[in-house]
């Protein structure tokens, strides 16, 4: 019952916004190639559903690959930087600087280097997504108290054991926090990747529809993209609850 009520609030908000939108477009007689009413978008969504689904599956693979790449890479980087102060001093400025580089600027280069397949999109997604993972996982690795580390040392634990049995499990809650932020960023990253060079995918569909003044289809693709993002977020939450079962026990 509570969960239903929690779900009702955002649904009601979306419905109200759509009604206002619909009313405004009708009232001001806005041409549908400038801003289509939601009813038209829904119609386009339904009539083009098989095509939307096909494009979505391509984009989903790119997002997932990007998240995996960014997740594994980001976590590995966080561990490396934690283990070696030298690496921390060397890499951290680069990691932060990498976030200042506009992805739009390097996405075309990635297409030149890697072609039109999944990889350039996945890499763009990973490039945006890895940052919150590095930052959050680094915090998590430092979470155990000095006393707990000393307890391990007093029991004769090696550095490797302290990492495996203490720091890695302690970093999982913040790792998941980073992954959830990264998942939404990867959706954006994959779309940008597709805009620069693709033959399939929701980003590609958006560009094509825009060129044909099919703005209703652009919005249908955006809606599909949002659904992908929500789906990914939900999946991550389920995995998080599974992995961090101990957290719900307080």
């Amino acid at each position, binding site marked *: 019952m509570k969960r239903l009520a929690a779900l009702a609030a955002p649904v009601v908000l979306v419905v109200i916004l759509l009604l206002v939108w619909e009313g405004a477009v009708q009232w001001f007689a806005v041409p549908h190639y400038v801003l289509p009413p939601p009813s038209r978008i829904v119609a386009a969504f339904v009539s083009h559903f098989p095509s939307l689904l096909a494009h979505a599956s391509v984009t989903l693979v790119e997002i997932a690959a990007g998240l995996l790449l960014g997740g594994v890479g980001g976590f590995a980087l966080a561990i490396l930087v934690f283990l070696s102060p030298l690496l921390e001093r060397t890499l951290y400025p680069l990691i932060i600087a990498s976030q200042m580089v506009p992805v739009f600027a390097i996405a075309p280069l990635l297409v030149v280097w890697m072609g039109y397949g999944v990889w350039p999109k996945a890499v763009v997604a990973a490039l945006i997504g890895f940052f919150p993972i590095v930052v959050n996982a680094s915090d998590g690795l430092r979470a155990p108290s000095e006393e*707990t580390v000393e307890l*391990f040392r007093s029991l004769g634990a090696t550095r490797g054991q302290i990492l495996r049995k203490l720091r890695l499990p302690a970093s999982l809650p913040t790792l998941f926090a980073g992954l959830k932020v990264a998942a939404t960023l990867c959706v954006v990253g994959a779309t940008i990747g597709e805009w620069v060079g693709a033959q399939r995918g929701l980003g590609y569909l958006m560009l094509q529809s825009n060129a044909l003044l099919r703005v209703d289809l652009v919005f249908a693709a955006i809606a599909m993209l949002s659904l992908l993002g929500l789906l990914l977020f939900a999946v991550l939450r389920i995995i998080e609850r599974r992995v961090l079962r101990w957290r719900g*026990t*307080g």
Partner: protein
Amino acid sequence: MKHVAIHVEDVSKTFRDGRGNVEALASVTFVVERGTWTTILGPSGCGKTTLLRILAGLVRPDAGRAAMGDESGEKTAYLPQRDTLLPWRTALDNAILASEIEGRPREAARSEARELFARFGLSGFERHYPAQLSGGMRQRLALARTFLAHRDVLLLDEPLGSLDPLTRTALQDWLLSIWAELRKTILLVTHDVEEALFLSDRVLVMTRRPATITRDLPVDLRRPRDRLSAELASRKGKLLALLLDGR
């Protein structure tokens, strides 16, 4: 002559921090016999914890020698003052941490821990997470983990300090019975005079920084002891006066 479990000779330690040097320990010397309960009593922040950390092999003394038993080496199980249970592990898996670190087979360690759980009042809570346990149970679990390290000497840093008085009293009784049963050497650190007198064979009184041992008092009260006895009360008064003088 009984065997020596802990041998501390002329141990000194000074910490350097941003503002200067803090002399934590100054020439501490004492010997603890195997199987006895010794308590270090002193005001908060007087270097008691530093002494335990030296004995646990976590800190090197600047001068002097701290050795366990006949040969020096790892023979202690250290229980830090603050909660160090791992929240992502079940009670049972928290208890077998030492065995796991030493690479002993996990199932054997688990079944051994299960047996001890009954004695520690933790039966039925093997699969609970620390967050699901009461303060007293968490402390018993931390103590179970310490016992399961299979070391001869237990170094306990205010293990009951964070508990409410009622739970604390109950756990003191229980800890005594466990000690009588398992015959370990215990070195307890506390600032609670009654706890020191009720539990130990011997009380070492420590002064404020730089800490040294100013008194070495055998507690020759018969066991089982009575917290409310006149003998204990009079000793408590004297010991308190001594501690207040030492400021």
